[in-house]
């Protein structure tokens, strides 16, 4: 147990190096991050608080205020589970520190549990944003006492455990069975993707089952019963969410305490199962994770000829970047796969709820009504900007070089060209990421070619904007000092800041469109003009200051 604690502390300290270099830069960066966080999250958190505050009052009319907890906690659990799969794949299986830990005399469960603790700490960030407002608002509005807040603290700290345990178990089992082929790395990547789909799939099946098992009249009847009866409707794949809600709602009764106990028992058992399975399976899944197959076969004359095509500098450099992004598992998961996750998230409601498509179809006349099309355009562009900014390719373009930055510096290639070549993969992935959104837009607006053109132009300008911003951030604060690729992309503040800036831009865009009730042409011209001006400005800054930063960068 002692070794487990020590390992956890070491891993935690090691994972804290989010900021590149110490000193002046890191302070500027922290201030910048803080401002961005405030800008990006303030409207969102305010929105959540407003929604919950009023939602409580509304539900309380039916004596169903407890539903606030029983609806949100399962959703939060699912979000944690979903991102948990990414965290677990990164930290448990693809992180390079595993290879340094394997030769040390640790038991499998000790490494597994230490990694689990670190991942759990990261999940608390999600919890602060999502779960804290819910628990606090319910507490304040229902006049919760000491016991309520005691339960709250325990639940806040333990809520992510079960979703994370399930994510870990899925990954451990899949990795155990994909760690057999000669092409281990590739198989493991496929395993990771499979885990994601299993996760989403289970949730879809579960939601459908619940929807079909509870008819509308049943649900209405339950609501009419009052007395927080909705809380009793089992509605999550994570049973802990239900028990936690009940414990909080009935905190003054014995039932609350019993539910709390049940909740804690389930969590403890789940951890034990994970430790037990991990002891037997974790090492089998993780050993030789970085082994690369080698054929050692001479290339045939045709293969050779095909491999030695002559290309321009920018093309050659951009393709090199693209290959490294696709072939490095951690980069693939975080920079490539991420592009497709959000579109899938956006599509999820359509898959789980069959009626939604017909509902949307009914809404098409309204959406395409010229009166609203300015706002609709702004919303579509905002969604695009958000998807662009989830791709951390340009915001980690310099950081990913790590201690091999020197190679960029002795190659006889202009720094401006290198910057452009590093942006190209980000733009390519932006294109694929937004394709689904574009197809959706084309489906809705079809005969109206003009609006589709407008969307394409604004997407292009917006993708440039986010990529320029990302690489500028990374040039200003490169994180070159890392021992695991995970730190270059996942624990890189530039990627997070770029995401926040993207969210802020998306928010401002929608706000302007609503505030000034812009028509279609107005929305297009205003957004286009702002984007184009910023693009021009940023390109200028990158070609002057950016080049200078790159040139003077030393590590």
């Amino acid at each position, binding site marked *: 147990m002692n070794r487990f604690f020590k390992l956890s502390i070491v891993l935690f300290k090691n994972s804290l190096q989010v900021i590149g270099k110490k000193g002046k830069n890191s302070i500027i960066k922290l201030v910048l991050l803080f401002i961005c966080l405030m800008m990006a999250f303030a409207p969102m958190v305010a929105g959540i608080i407003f929604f919950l505050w009023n939602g409580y009052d509304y539900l309380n009319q039916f004596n169903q205020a407890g539903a606030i907890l029983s609806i949100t906690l399962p959703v939060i659990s699912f979000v944690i589970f979903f991102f948990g799969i990414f965290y677990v794949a990164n930290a448990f299986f693809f992180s390079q520190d595993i290879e340094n830990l394997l030769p040390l005399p640790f038991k499998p469960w000790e490494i597994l549990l230490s990694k689990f603790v670190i991942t759990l700490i990261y999940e608390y960030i999600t919890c602060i944003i999502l779960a804290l407002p819910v628990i606090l608002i319910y507490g304040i509005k229902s006049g919760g006492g000491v016991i309520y807040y005691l339960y709250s603290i325990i639940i806040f700290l333990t809520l992510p455990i079960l979703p994370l345990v399930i994510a870990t178990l899925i990954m451990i089992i899949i990795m155990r069975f994909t760690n057999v082929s000669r092409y281990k790395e590739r198989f493991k990547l496929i395993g990771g993707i499979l885990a994601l789909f299993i996760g989403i799939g289970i949730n879809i099946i579960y939601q459908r089952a619940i929807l079909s098992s509870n008819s509308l009249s049943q649900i209405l009847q339950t609501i009419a019963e009052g007395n927080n009866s909705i809380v009793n409707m089992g509605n999550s794949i994570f049973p802990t969410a239900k028990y936690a809600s009940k414990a909080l709602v009935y905190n003054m009764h014995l039932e609350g305490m019993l539910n709390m106990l049940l909740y804690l028992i389930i969590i403890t058992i789940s951890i034990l199962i994970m430790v037990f399975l991990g002891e037997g399976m974790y090492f089998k899944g993780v050993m030789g994770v*970085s082994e*690369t*197959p*080698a*054929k*050692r*076969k*001479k*290339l045939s004359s045709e*293969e*050779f*000829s095909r*491999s*030695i*095509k*002559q*290309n*321009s*500098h920018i*093309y*050659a*450099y951009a*393709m*090199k970047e693209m*290959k*490294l992004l696709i*072939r*490095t598992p951690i980069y693939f998961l975080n920079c490539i796969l991420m592009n497709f996750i959000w579109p899938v998230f956006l599509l999820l409601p359509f898959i789980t709820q069959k009626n939604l498509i017909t509902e949307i179809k009914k809404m098409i006349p309204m959406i395409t009504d010229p009166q609203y099309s300015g706002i609709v355009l702004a919303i579509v562009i905002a969604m695009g900007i958000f998807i662009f900014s989830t791709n951390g390719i340009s915001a980690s373009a310099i950081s990913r070089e790590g201690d*091999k930055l*020197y*190679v960029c*510096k*002795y*190659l*006889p*290639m*202009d720094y401006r060209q290198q910057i452009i070549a590093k942006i190209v993969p980000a733009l390519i992935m932006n294109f694929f990421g937004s394709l689904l959104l574009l197809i959706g837009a084309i489906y809705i607006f079809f005969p109206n070619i003009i609006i589709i053109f407008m969307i394409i132009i604004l997407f292009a300008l917006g993708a440039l904007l986010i990529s320029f911003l990302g690489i500028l951030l990374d040039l200003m604060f490169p994180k070159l000092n890392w021992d695991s690729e995970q730190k270059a992309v996942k624990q890189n503040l530039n990627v997070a800041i770029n995401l926040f800036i993207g969210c802020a831009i998306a928010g401002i865009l929608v706000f302007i469109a609503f505030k000034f009730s812009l028509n279609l042409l107005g929305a297009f011209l205003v957004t286009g003009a702002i984007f184009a001006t910023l693009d021009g400005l940023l390109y200028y800054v990158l070609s002057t200051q950016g080049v200078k930063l790159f*040139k*003077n960068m*030393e590590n």
Partner: protein
Amino acid sequence: MIEITNVSKSYNGKLKAVDNLNLFIPDGQIFGFLGPNGAGKTTTIRMITGIIKADTGSIKLNGKDIQDDAILAKKQFGFVPDNPDMFLRLKGIEYLNFLADIYDVSKESRRERIEKLCKEFEISVALGDRIQSYSHGMRQKIVLIGALLHEPAIWILDEPMTGLDPKAAFALKEKMRVQADMGKTVFFSTHVLDVAEKLCDQVAIINKGKILYCGTMDKMREHFKENESLEKMFLEMTENE
């Protein structure tokens, strides 16, 4: 030809890694750069190759200044860094083709040179595999080949013998000699004094950022007692500092 004039470099404004360095490395010679750990060898090489900027002074490669005329200056040399672990997820052939693109080597020339060099370094069978699957020595070889693809006038190598087996080391030494005999400049740093002694036309010994000696092996022997080994001379010089 490499001309280093009054070059200094300090880290954090305090620690002087290289102190007013002056070196002239002529064409057609193998020039060994010797010194104990932390003497300033790698810092000097990083300044010559444009990886870091000198605080003062100038560095010219075949007359092209590495700061003012960077791209042309960088095209003059092929560089073999001390750690060959780079682009590990590219295949050998992809790495070489990437470099050939960046150094503007025509398709015909790159085909001929890749085939010839890979044969010489016995690495042809591994070209279709990812560099990650290579041993340390093989990685070193692919980097060596990459540095020679554009037939540079100057060859700069940082600790090139590390990790090479005797056969590969022999092949590398042969290659260095051939390059010098073709009138090209070969500049390399090393710890292995035997290699320097047998291979170099000239050596410079650096310690604490300053050049202690620069000249031919013969002159150095004259300077000290005749027939004394380089090791003994080296230790004598660096210890007296």
